[in-house]
């Protein structure tokens, strides 16, 4: 009984108010599902943790939604929320980096692409971080690297289990090499964390690619992915351009990564907290055979 099958047995959530489903209504009340192309009632979607009740498609979750979803209500304490990016390269292309930052800030209400803090999972204290793809494609610059590193260090020092949900296009181009070095910085923090004997669970959400997959996100004890999430190093477009051929169907999906041995399991968002809690039960260093 692979865990996947076990979940398949679980009840599928039924749509809220199914009779209303196909009615045409103003924008903002319904949203078209990218999985089944059907309109989905937004309030119902919210209640269902943004998982399509018809086809299980996982709508994007913001970082705040993720930490709320994973932690017990009222237990999440955000840390370093006021850490904000600089513009070390004075980067200007079609758009200035500082303008991109302003737009992203307005759009997400965040200062950068990650939310970090502590909270409880079924009563157990953990260090938890979540990336926000809405903030410049969840890219990792100085602030993301710094906050992830601080979170790992906090987990190391306070001996807390570490849980990080990734969703990122990779390193943030606009901070140049400073961004690239965040890969080494966060990985180095994981190397130190590993010595603490505490567990690290990575959750990979759609999409996780580039410098995030190639650093802390792939270095966990247990790696979970959401169904259908795109996970890989190079982006599909880059690969297609390089090899000059179409990519096979299902390439770089969570399922692809599972069969190629890169992740431990695929877990539906509706079951995510439960499986994380069960895993933590196993991973707490209580010592052998009480």
């Amino acid at each position, binding site marked *: 009984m692979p865990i996947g099958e076990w979940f398949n047995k679980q009840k599928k959530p039924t749509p809220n108010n199914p009779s209303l489903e196909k009615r045409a209504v103003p924008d903002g009340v319904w949203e078209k599902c990218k999985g089944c192309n059907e309109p989905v009632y937004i309030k119902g979607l919210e209640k269902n943790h943004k998982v399509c009740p018809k086809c299980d498609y996982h709508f994007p979750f913001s970082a705040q939604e993720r930490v709320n979803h994973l932690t017990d209500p009222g237990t999440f304490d955000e840390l370093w929320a006021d850490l904000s990016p600089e513009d070390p390269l004075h980067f200007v292309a079609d758009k200035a980096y500082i303008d991109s930052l302003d737009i992203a800030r307005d759009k997400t209400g965040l200062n950068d692409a990650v939310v970090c803090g502590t909270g409880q999972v079924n009563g157990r204290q953990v260090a938890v971080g979540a990336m926000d793809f809405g903030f410049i494609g969840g890219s990792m610059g100085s602030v993301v690297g710094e906050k992830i590193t601080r979170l790992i260090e906090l987990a190391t020092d306070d001996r807390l289990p570490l849980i990080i949900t990734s969703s990122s296009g990779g390193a943030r181009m606009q*901070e140049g090499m400073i961004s*690239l*070095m965040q*890969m080494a910085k966060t*990985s180095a923090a994981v190397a130190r964390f590993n010595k603490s004997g505490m567990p690290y669970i990575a959750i990979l959400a759609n999409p996780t690619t580039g410098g995030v997959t190639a*650093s802390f996100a792939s270095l966990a004890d247990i790696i979970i992915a959401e169904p259908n999430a795109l996970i890989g190093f190079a982006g599909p477009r*880059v690969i297609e351009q390089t090899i000059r051929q179409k990519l*096979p169907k299902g390439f770089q999906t969570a399922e692809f990564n599972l069969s190629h041995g890169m992740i431990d399991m695929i877990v539906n968002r509706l079951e995510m907290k439960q499986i994380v809690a069960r895993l933590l039960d196993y991973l707490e260093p209580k010592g052998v055979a009480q």
Partner: protein
Amino acid sequence: MKRFAYDFERPLVELETKLDELKRLESADKQDIAFQIKYLEDQIQKLRVRTYSKLTPWQKVQLARHPERPRTADYIEAIFTDFIELHGDRIYRDDPAIIGGFARLGDTRVMVVGHQKGRNTKENVFRNFGMPHPEGYRKARRLMRLANKFKLPFITFVDTQGAYPGIEAEERGQATAIAEDLLELSALAVPVIVAVIGEGGSGGALAIGFGDRIIMLENSYYSVITPEGCASILWDGGDGADRAAEVLGLTADNLLKLGIIDIIVKEPLGGAHHGPALVARDLKRELEKSLKELGRVDLAELVEKRYSKLRNVGFYHQETGLAKTLNLNTLTSE
């Protein structure tokens, strides 16, 4: 034979070709010829300085990729003695895009690892143009562990456009392989010295591209993304690589200012391939100097220092109440 030349080098090459022709000319008026040669040589010298002394970032990227530029194997041969190449990841394949092995730098025994490009098309196909697959990074990790076990300083040569973006590379876990190198390298309890000798492309370079000292050749580059990749995102197309090279801040100069790298080794006018022995000599001197400095540091302290160095890379500010804290460490310290 026609010499390879980038657009910006053409006028210079044309003059040089003319000079060659002139020298071969059998003329009655030897004095006139001699005068013309002298004149052309002056012109060439002036033009060479003008062409190469104020290179744009994009021109530097081009020199970094120059087909005649010395490769990792060339520097290993020139700088070290008694190289013994080691092969394989013990898992899947021996990746020819990364080479490594034991070598001696003066009297010091070290482990050397680097990206390896080919010298011609055939070699480049074999070496995959220096773009590793996961097995290359896993070979590198094996050599890191060997270096750690036998306490051999770890010296790397960075010269890749990036990790290979292909179907099989993704299937075999390119991201995981790179991540594991980063983790391993960060904690190696031996001195780690990096020499960026050509292209330092993205995560595929970084996997063996950070340490206690990072040295860059003058015309090498080190970048979060290739200029072409950046351009295709920013301006939706392959064009604009020159502008991208500008905004990415990928030159040695710039990275030294940012505190990302530690040392720049000068190249002859026109690039390292105009004087490989000279560049090798200077690079060797810097490697020896770094090794000597790092050799004095206790190994545990070395790992701590490497961590602090990484730890400080980042530009951000934090507003706590009224105070604003700035992290600009990479600009000031190191």
